[in-house]
C-alpha cells in the first residue's frame, strides 16, 4: 500500500528534475529546507528523524539535492521527505512537505480492533513493518 502523505503524494513519484524544480520554488519563496527520514510512516508520526540541520541561506537547489542524495545513499530503505519552512510572521509553519524517497516494498497497515468495556471498540492502524525492529523494517527479507 502506497503511503500518501504531504504534497504531491497522489502523483507518480517525482523525478530528480521535478524535485529540483519544487525545491527551487521553495528557495525562491525564501523558505529554508530540511531533509528528514523515517521507517515509521504512521500518519500520526509527525516528527521524522532529521538528516542534518535545516539548510539556511541557500540560493540553489543543488545543495538540497546533494543532501538528499547523501540521505538516500545512507538510508535506501526508508521514507525520505523534504520540508520547506516558512518563517514569515503569522505563518511560521511548514509550507511545503513532500515525500521524495520510499522503500521498494510498502506492506501497508492492518486495522486492529480492541474490545473495550460495554462492547466499545477501539481501532488502531498498525503498520505491518512496525513488527520488525527499527532500522530493519523495510529491508528486503
Amino acid at each position, binding site marked *: 500500500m502506497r503511503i500518501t502523505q504531504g504534497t504531491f503524494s497522489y502523483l507518480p513519484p517525482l523525478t530528480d*528534475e521535478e524535485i529540483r524544480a519544487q525545491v527551487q520554488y521553495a528557495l525562491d519563496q525564501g523558505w529554508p529546507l530540511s531533509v528528514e527520514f523515517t521507517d515509521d510512516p504512521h500518519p500520526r508520526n509527525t516528527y521524522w528523524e532529521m538528516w*542534518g*540541520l535545516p*539548510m539556511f*541561506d*541557500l*540560493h*540553489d*537547489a*543543488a*545543495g*538540497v539535492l*546533494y*543532501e538528499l542524495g547523501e540521505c538516500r545513499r545512507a538510508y535506501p530503505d526508508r521514507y525520505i521527505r523534504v520540508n520547506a519552512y516558512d518563517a514569515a510572521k503569522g505563518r511560521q509553519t511548514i509550507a511545503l512537505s513532500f515525500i521524495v524517497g520510499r522503500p521498494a516494498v510498502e506492506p501497508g497497515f492492518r486495522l486492529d480492533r480492541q474490545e473495550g468495556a460495554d462492547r466499545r471498540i477501539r481501532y488502531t492502524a498498525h503498520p505491518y513493518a512496525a513488527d520488525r525492529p527499527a532500522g530493519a523494517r523495510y529491508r528486503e527479507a
Partner: protein
Amino acid sequence: MAAEPALDADAVVDLAGARQGSGVDEVLAALDTELVGLAPVKTRIREIAALLLVDAERSRFGLTTSRPSLHMSFTGDPGTGKTTVALRMADLLKRLGYLQRGHLVAVTREELVGQYVGHTAPRTREVLKRAMGGVLFIDEAYYLYRAGNERDYGQEAIEILLQVMENQRQDLVVILAGYSGRMDTFFQANPGMSSRIAHHIDFPGYSLDELERIGTLMVGQAGYRLSPDAESVFRDYLARRMTQSRFANARSVRNAVERARLRHASRLFDLPATLSLEDLMRLEPADFLASRVFRDES
C-alpha cells in the same frame, strides 16, 4: 529538459547572435571600463567566455563536449582587485549559462574550519551548499593549510573541498585567492588542489598611471572632482605612497580618497560663507597635502 535534436552537419549557427543574446559583451565592456589595467586577467576572462559560448554552439551540433572545469586561483598583491573580479566572474558565468544563480559566497578559514573534532565537515559542507549555483570565493586560502601542524582541521576542510570540486563541478565554481608567494607554498603542499584548478590567474600590481586613473574613477564615483592643481598633487601623493610600506594598491587609493573627503568636509565646516555645488564637489590640493605621506618625507 528535453534535448533539442542535433543540427545537421551542414547547418550554420549564429555565434554573434548567441553572444549578444547572452549579454556577455556588457560584462566584458563593464570590466574594461570600470577596472583599470589587469590586462592578463581580462584576456583570460575573455578566453573563458569565448570557450563557453563556442561550447554551447558545438553542443547544438551534437558534439559532446565535457563540461570545462572552471575552478580558479587568483593570486596577487593586496588591493589588486581579486574580490571585484570574482564578483564579475560570477555574473559572467551566470550569463553564459554555466552557473544557475551567479551569486558569490566569500569565506575565509573561520567559516570553513571547525574548532573541535567532527566540527569541520558539517561546517565546510554547509558553506559549500550555500555556494552551490554560484561562486565560492575563499579569501586567503593558504590559511586553510598550516604546515607543521598535522592535527590542524584545515586539512579536513581541504579534503572535503577537493571532493566537492571534483564531484559537483556542475553546481559550483571555487575561486581561491591570496597573495602570490604564500599561495605558491600552499599549492606545493597540496598538489591535489593545484591540479584541480584549471585557471591560475595572476593579478599584476598597478603602475602609477593606472593608480591615478583608479583614483580619478573613485573620486568621480563618489560624486567629487579634482581641481586642476589637486590632480598633480594627487599624482605626487600616489608616487610617494607607492614607495612606502603597507601599500595596498587600489585599497590605498580608496583610503586616500576617503581621507581627502574627510579633510574636504572639515575644511568646508569652518567656512562661514554659503557654498555652491562646485564647492561641495571640488577637492583641493590642501585636502591631500595635509596627509602624513607628505609629512614623512620632509
